[in-house]
């Protein structure tokens, strides 16, 4: 056939456009593009010893107390979804960022950016959710701000919350403290929140008994800290999922992490949706789960303490910190083989077929 010559013609694609000229959605994904933004724009300008820690919260000593301080902005579509709404997320997200530093959350600020035309009922509903979530978490909203932007300049409601908490003496949780031999603990099923949000998106409505896992985790953290003083690091794997949090810990601690695929709990509904869309639950967002890096001898007792709390009922050991493949997260698959669990560049995109 005539193709014989044609087939040997090498056709290639050019070097693509580097994502440097403008902000792309991927810069907000929590993956490598987010990290690049941090390294190339924010840190060079704002570098200081506290910020350099790059933990979910800053911990500073002030007037004899150890204060934890954090801030987070919430943009979610749709605003209301099974298991919660943007208000619930805004409280729990910031409470969790404080809790991951071992802090007892105390106070929140609340800033709202509202889009012209937003139904007043929606605002009422979100504020009621904030009230309820704050009451459950035991935090008080002590200051706030509201701005309104023109229709088309926002997406209904954007929320920012900042939080202050106190950290007891002796608690020192940080992403750079993982050591070879440490165990990786996970408090429950992964992917519930992200798949719930996807299932509500226009054009993708799929049935299924799945709800966001949004929850304030500080009581779970408190129980864990009572059970052991050998907890090195806590992270709530939100955007970017389990994989992004673990890659961050591996990089900051200069260690490898090996996961056991069989040990990672995923609900059937979530697994099914991921299979359908070509997504990997390891990269799907959670809003009520935590990862703990714990010294090997303490791991079992911490798991036991977690299981006694309703937020950690399905807690288990899912992996081990190691020296090999420095800063690489790998996984022992169901088939007993090994594969990499990489940090994604940007957002996880559904495959074509």
């Amino acid at each position: 056939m005539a193709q014989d010559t044609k087939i040997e013609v090498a056709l290639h694609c050019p070097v693509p456009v580097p994502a440097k000229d403008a902000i792309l959605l991927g810069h907000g994904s929590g993956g490598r593009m987010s990290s690049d933004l941090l390294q190339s724009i924010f840190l060079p300008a704002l570098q200081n010893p506290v910020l350099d820690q790059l933990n979910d919260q800053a911990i500073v000593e002030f007037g004899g107390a150890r204060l934890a301080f954090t801030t987070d902005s919430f943009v979610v579509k749709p605003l209301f979804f099974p298991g919660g709404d943007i208000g619930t997320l805004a409280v729990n997200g910031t409470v969790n960022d404080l809790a991951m530093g071992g802090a007892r959350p105390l106070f929140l600020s609340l800033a709202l950016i509202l889009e012209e035309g937003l139904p007043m009922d929606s605002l009422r509903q979100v504020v009621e959710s904030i009230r309820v979530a704050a009451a459950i978490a035991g935090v008080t909203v002590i200051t706030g701000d509201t701005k309104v932007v023109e229709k088309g300049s926002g997406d209904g409601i954007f929320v920012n919350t900042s939080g202050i908490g106190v950290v007891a003496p002796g608690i020192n949780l940080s992403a750079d403290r993982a050591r070879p031999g440490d165990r990786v603990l996970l408090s429950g099923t992964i992917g519930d929140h992200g798949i719930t949000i996807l299932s509500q998106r226009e054009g993708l409505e799929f049935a299924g008994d799945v709800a966001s896992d949004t929850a304030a985790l500080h009581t779970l953290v408190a129980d864990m800290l009572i059970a052991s003083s050998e907890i090195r690091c806590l992270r709530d794997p939100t955007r970017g999922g389990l994989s992004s949090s673990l890659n961050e810990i591996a990089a900051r601690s200069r260690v490898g992490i090996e996961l056991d695929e069989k040990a990672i709990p995923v609900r059937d509904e979530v697994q099914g949706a991921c299979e359908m869309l070509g997504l990997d639950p390891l990269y799907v967002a959670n809003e009520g789960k935590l990862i703990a890096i714990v010294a090997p001898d303490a791991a079992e007792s911490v798991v036991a303490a977690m299981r006694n709390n309703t937020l950690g009922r399905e807690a288990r050991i899912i992996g081990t910190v190691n020296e090999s493949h420095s800063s690489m997260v790998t996984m022992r698959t169901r088939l007993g083989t090994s594969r990499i669990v990489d940090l994604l560049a940007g957002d996880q995109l559904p495959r074509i077929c």
Partner: protein
Amino acid sequence: MKYLDEYRDERIARGLVAEIARRATRPWVLMEICGGQTHTLMRFGIDELLPQGVEMVHGPGCPVCVTPLETIDKAIDIASRPGVTLISYGDMLRVPGSNTDLFHVKANGGDVRIVYAPTEALKFARANPDRQVVFFAVGFETTAPANAMAVWQAKREGLKNFSMLASHVLVPPAMRALLSSRRNRVQGFIGPGHVCTVMGYGEYEDLIREFHVPIVVGGFEPVDLLEAILMLVTQLEEGRAEVENQYVRSVTYQGNLHAQKILGEVFEVCDRKWRGIGGIPESGFNIREEYADFDADRIFGTQGVTADEPAECISAEVLQGLKKPTDCSAFGTRCTPEKPLGAPMVSSEGACAAYYQYRRHMVAAKGAH
């Protein structure tokens, strides 16, 4: 979870591996056609399980990877025009054209949207009569029927603001092109399960007659692939060359006749350029003359757009199964998913991206591959 756990069962998988090792008395080179199958091989580390003599090379079945540069340029051109909404599947947005990609078009104010089905694009067109809605349709025979259906429906409804930039490719002509090459190493194929769900597997019998090569239509789970590999090795060891169907839970001999009917109604077979391979006769679908009012290429006058594809990497050899991604000196260093030199590193279905994402530690552990 049913239909999943049993196809990812370690005991069954290891049993199949042992059987493959027992049957294989000499080295064989096999190719999986689909990007989805490559993805499974890498994600589950099946290359680590297979006996040394059984080598898998990776086929051209990643729709994103083989979409020619000029088609991406056309999509970018159309998406940049005022009043246009370009809608596509997620993966296409990241693929670079000559100067930019669709993500950047979006960031610069272009209306570019991701959907999961072309009918969503239709829905958008109905709801937004003031916008010209263009669906960027790429993919193999698998995605083609739904796209054909969208065009068919648009014509039936008399929609004036919906069109399709179609760049469909067909598997059997690509296999013929690979087998015709004097550099071909492939001795057996795992056929594309989802393509065959639509098209059946009758059309592969011509290839077998012509090239005497066994083809086993395979699924996408680890046990599917191992079973297909075992069936191929068995045929090769016995000197047979037949079409067999491993993916019986989805594929029939005739395929989906309704889907084929709508394909024939809306599309016609045409010559098509494949990135990394070149022009292959009768290897694509174009929109028929009767549906010209829905053909974005004609409506926006982009038929003449061409693009030169400069030589940077070995993607041509990779897409033909002549080389492994790890044979490339740029792999993992100058070429990564963030800074890809070639299309197979861009798409999550691409062979280079699959190696990079799941397997590069094994490459490092073994030294040079």
